[in-house]
């Protein structure tokens, strides 16, 4: 169980020529990942997805908010003690090629963490070989064929499976998949996605899935929540299918509209829309961050910063109301997949919420 409350991360860049600049990579992200559950994050490039992933695995620090793992608030611990918790959270990298050391064979890559793990748990170190074979089989690889190979001798899909196997060597309870399939040939993406789903089901590992491609999120995140991030801020959250089918926030709607439609098999959604401008992170916006690009922006949007409120509520909270809403939201320990609509709710940060159907519709379904 991981709970994140108002995680913020600000980068201070000292470009020797561009001058100093402050980048708000994350502006207060809350989420809850129950054991065995799944959370997906979608958003366009540069919205802070990777930063979040790195924070969760301890590769990056955060400068505000709380991260609670298994009931322990990590920022209160000393770095040494934190390591133990972060070890349970493993990351699967986007680029399976760079994620494997080109000078080491699969055997060496798996062997070291396995031996380290064995020493920790008191298991016989010599058993690492069997364990490696077991893991490779688990991720769908033939151990004998793969063990002596170097990364460049493997295909993209195979490499990604090795990466996953390596993450599993330390018996993690959470996997973070940051664009885990975007660099893999289309024909093999599904293989990896179903492997992740499989791991969730078989090992009870919970999953944080980070992507800009909503369609893939749909494949692993079933039963879990989908968070839509924009410029370091969650603008909409809800059960994956619900958000996909009836998005409320204009940004989510734009994102989903951008998913290409398989003409012939699907028909475009009736309310498809697109942002009115390109992303510009430089200009500070006092109001809604999406307002400059929003096709539906109203008068209030430019002035006031909206916060997350449940869909269907009468008014959208402003900053003052935020504490109230998110507080209730996060501390609710009963946030689970079941009974979601009411409890976890479909929340959004928009002054003019309106559910629109933007994703494609299957031709068969429509005609049937």
């Amino acid at each position, binding site marked *: 169980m991981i709970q994140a409350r108002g995680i913020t991360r600000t980068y201070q860049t000292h470009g*020797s*020529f*561009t001058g100093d600049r402050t980048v708000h990579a994350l502006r207060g992200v809350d989420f809850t990942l129950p054991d065995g559950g799944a959370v997906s994050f979608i958003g366009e490039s540069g919205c802070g997805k990777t930063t979040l992933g790195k924070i969760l695995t301890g590769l990056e620090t955060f400068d505000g908010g709380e991260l609670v793992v298994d009931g322990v608030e990590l920022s209160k611990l000393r770095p040494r003690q934190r390591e133990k918790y972060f070890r349970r959270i493993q990351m699967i990298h986007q680029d399976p090629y760079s994620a494997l050391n080109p000078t080491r064979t699969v055997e060496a890559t798996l062997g070291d963490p396995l031996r380290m793990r064995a020493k920790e748990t008191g298991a016989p170190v010599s058993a690492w070989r069997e364990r490696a074979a077991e893991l490779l089989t688990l991720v769908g690889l033939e151990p004998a064929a793969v063990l002596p190979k170097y990364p460049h001798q493997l295909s993209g899909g195979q490499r990604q499976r090795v990466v996953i196997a390596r993450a599993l060597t330390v018996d993690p309870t959470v996997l973070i998949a940051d664009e885990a399939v975007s660099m893999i040939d289309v024909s093999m993406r599904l293989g990896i996605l179903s492997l992740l789903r499989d791991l969730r089901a078989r090992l009870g590992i919970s999953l944080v899935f980070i992507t800009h491609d909503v369609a893939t999120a749909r494949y692993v995140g079933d039963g879990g929540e989908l968070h839509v991030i924009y410029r370091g801020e969650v603008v909409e959250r809800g059960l994956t299918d619900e958000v996909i089918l009836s998005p409320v926030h204009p940004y989510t709607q734009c994102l989903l509209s951008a998913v290409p439609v398989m003409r012939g098999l699907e028909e475009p959604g009736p309310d498809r829309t697109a942002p009115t401008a390109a992303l510009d992170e430089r200009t500070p916006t006092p109001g809604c961050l999406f307002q400059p690009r929003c096709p539906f922006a109203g008068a209030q949007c430019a002035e006031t910063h909206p916060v997350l409120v449940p869909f269907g509520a009468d008014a959208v909270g402003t900053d003052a109301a935020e504490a109230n809403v998110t507080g209730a939201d996060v501390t609710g320990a009963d946030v689970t997949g079941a009974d979601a609509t009411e409890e976890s709710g479909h929340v959004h940060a928009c002054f003019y919420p309106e559910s629109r159907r933007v994703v494609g519709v299957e031709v068969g379904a429509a005609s049937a």
Partner: protein
Amino acid sequence: MTAFARRLAGKLAAGLVMVWVVVTFTFFLVHALPGKPGDVQYEQYIQSGMNAEQAAAKVKAIYGYTSHDSMLSQYGGYLGKLLHGDLGQSISYSGVPVSHLIWAALPWTVIPVLSGLLVSFLIGVTAGVVAAVRRSSRWGGLLTVSGSLFAGVPAFVLALLLLVVFHTEWNLLPDAGTSDIQYDPGWNLPYIGSVVQHAVLPVCAYALLSYGGWLLAMKSSVVSVLGDDFILASELRGIAPVTRARYIGRNAILPLFTVLALSFGVMFAGSFFIEDTFDYPGLGDLLLKSIGTRDYPVMAGAFLLITVSIIIANILADLCYTLIDPRVRR
């Protein structure tokens, strides 16, 4: 442009700190040397027939400098004078300010080094381009090997070979000094001609010394630029070959500015061998002589100047880079 100025200021500040470190380092190093400035002179007087007492007295009269201050306060004094641009007075050329000696020696190092740098740059870069473009052919391979070889062959070997061939064997060029003494130094043709004539061999030696570095750097740079997407893209757009060559050239030259600073260092190091072999009175020669006579101020001064030159070369290279590359300019 303020960012640019800030960067420059930062570089200068770092350079100054480095200068201070080097000053400190050299001061203590030089004073740790065994032997005293007068010792050599003393023996020379003795050997030229002076009796021991007389020689000792004369040495004392000339070198009499025996500071009883602690090392630290001497160091403080040295630093203080340095801040006012005073490098102290030479010991072996009694009464002559170190700065005079250095100013006199400086052109004889800097001018040949820079000319050598220019010559080797032109030749090395051209050869590098050829080696890159023809890298799979025999000629390209030979050029590359020639580059590595010249980059590896010690400076004195080059200097010696040049001397044997062009002076001893063919007797085309003088072997020592900076000019013929007959000519009145100044802006007159015979003198300049003589200076040029004397500089040919040292400049050649410097040029050969750094030619290999340029070639290898340019080759790898061109190879990597050739592999860059925009070069292929320009071909697919039907950009004229001349324009494409310019694209390649400008992009490939960029990384060479780092090599420039490096080359400068290599050449200054090589200046010892080259100046000694050609009896050329530059900084390296000055430093060598001052070591022999334990002329601490000159030693420290020459060493400092060599270091400062290298630091300045580094800063200049960095600035050139920034001026050419828009990505770091702004």
